[in-house]
């Protein structure tokens, strides 16, 4: 058997390997896992086609051109930094913190909480109204017009969290010592 391959019957299945195709293409797999994936790709047209597509995308993206900057333009940037830096007094807010794609996460949480509270209030009002209507306290012919409660805006964060909780994206853990990859995914 050629070096770096394993018997076909021992090769991992697509569902276990597909998530490792990217790291394989990127050279980020430890040797043992690389061998596993290579064996699978040797026999799986779909996964090997996926690997090829990923390579193509990366190769092409790497050719994306960035306009050059002249010495004069850099000098202008530098002068701007110094001029504004010297004029600013005291520490700024700073954003070297961990990247937070929902920078207004606190505001968003309050918005969701307020929307949920409004929805509960409306539901309670509706239920109460129906109860009173049935009990004859309220004239069934009268109407109560309520402004529709704003639905919580589903953000990318929420959508992503939703996908992670019950969708198709796997949870991927990397063992710090062995660098082995463990993938937990929804079995369809």
């Amino acid at each position, binding site marked *: 058997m050629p070096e770096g391959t394993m018997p076909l019957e021992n090769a991992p299945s697509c569902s276990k390997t597909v998530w490792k195709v*990217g790291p394989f293409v990127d050279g980020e797999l430890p040797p043992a896992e690389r061998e596993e994936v290579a064996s699978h790709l040797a026999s799986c047209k779909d996964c090997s086609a996926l690997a090829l597509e990923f390579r193509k995308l990366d190769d092409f993206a790497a050719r994306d051109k960035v306009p050059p900057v002249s010495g004069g333009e*850099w000098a202008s940037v530098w002068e701007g930094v110094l001029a504004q830096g010297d004029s600013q007094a005291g520490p700024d807010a700073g954003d070297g913190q961990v990247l937070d794609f929902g920078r207004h996460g606190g505001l968003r949480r309050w918005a969701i909480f307020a929307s949920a509270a409004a929805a509960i209030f409306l539901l309670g009002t509706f239920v109460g109204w129906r109860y009173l209507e049935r009990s004859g306290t309220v004239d069934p012919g009268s109407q109560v017009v309520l402004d529709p409660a704003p639905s919580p805006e589903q953000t990318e964060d929420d959508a992503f969290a939703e996908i992670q909780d019950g969708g198709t994206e796997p949870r991927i853990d990397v063992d710090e010592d062995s660098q082995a990859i463990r993938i937990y995914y929804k079995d369809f």
Partner: protein
Amino acid sequence: MRDPSDEEDLIKVEEFLSGNVRGFEFLFDKYREKVYRIAYRFVRDKEDALEVTQEVFLKVYTNLAKFKTDSKFFTWLYRVTVNRSIDFTRRRKSRRLQDMDPGVLEAQESLPGRSPARDPADLSAEAELEEKLAGAVQSLSEKHRAVFLLHAMESLSYKEIAATLGCSIGTVMSRLFYARKKLQEILGRIGLEAPGRSKQDA
């Protein structure tokens, strides 16, 4: 054990913090291209990218005292760059929505260097594909775009991306997989396929 380049950065940081601006100038000269390139990937306009670059270094200038020397300077710098770039794109998007005059929007779109801007008929096939790919990348969510740009265009490793974005390596893998699949889907839907090697190595 630290990389010599990382050690050098820390020495320059200390130099600046003890009052010598040459330390900061060294860091500016060393990283300005990289910061500009990352910013350009997000904002897709030279002038905007230079504006973001200036903002990034201004942030570094005023906040270097807050930098924790147990981490790498360039990781912190890239984090600031990605944050500022995303902020800039959000502000620009918000400004465009406010200026809903079609004439204003059309004028902005026709400025050189903006994407998408040029009439595809004027472009070569490869340039057209580049425009389409840039557009497709812009259509990804911020999380996925950041990972794809840092990996595919700036060649950062998974570990470097994870440190920059403040997430785990597993998350980087997951987001990159999703980003690539999404790009594949978008490019396929608009009838384009990225050119590349004709035979696979796998």
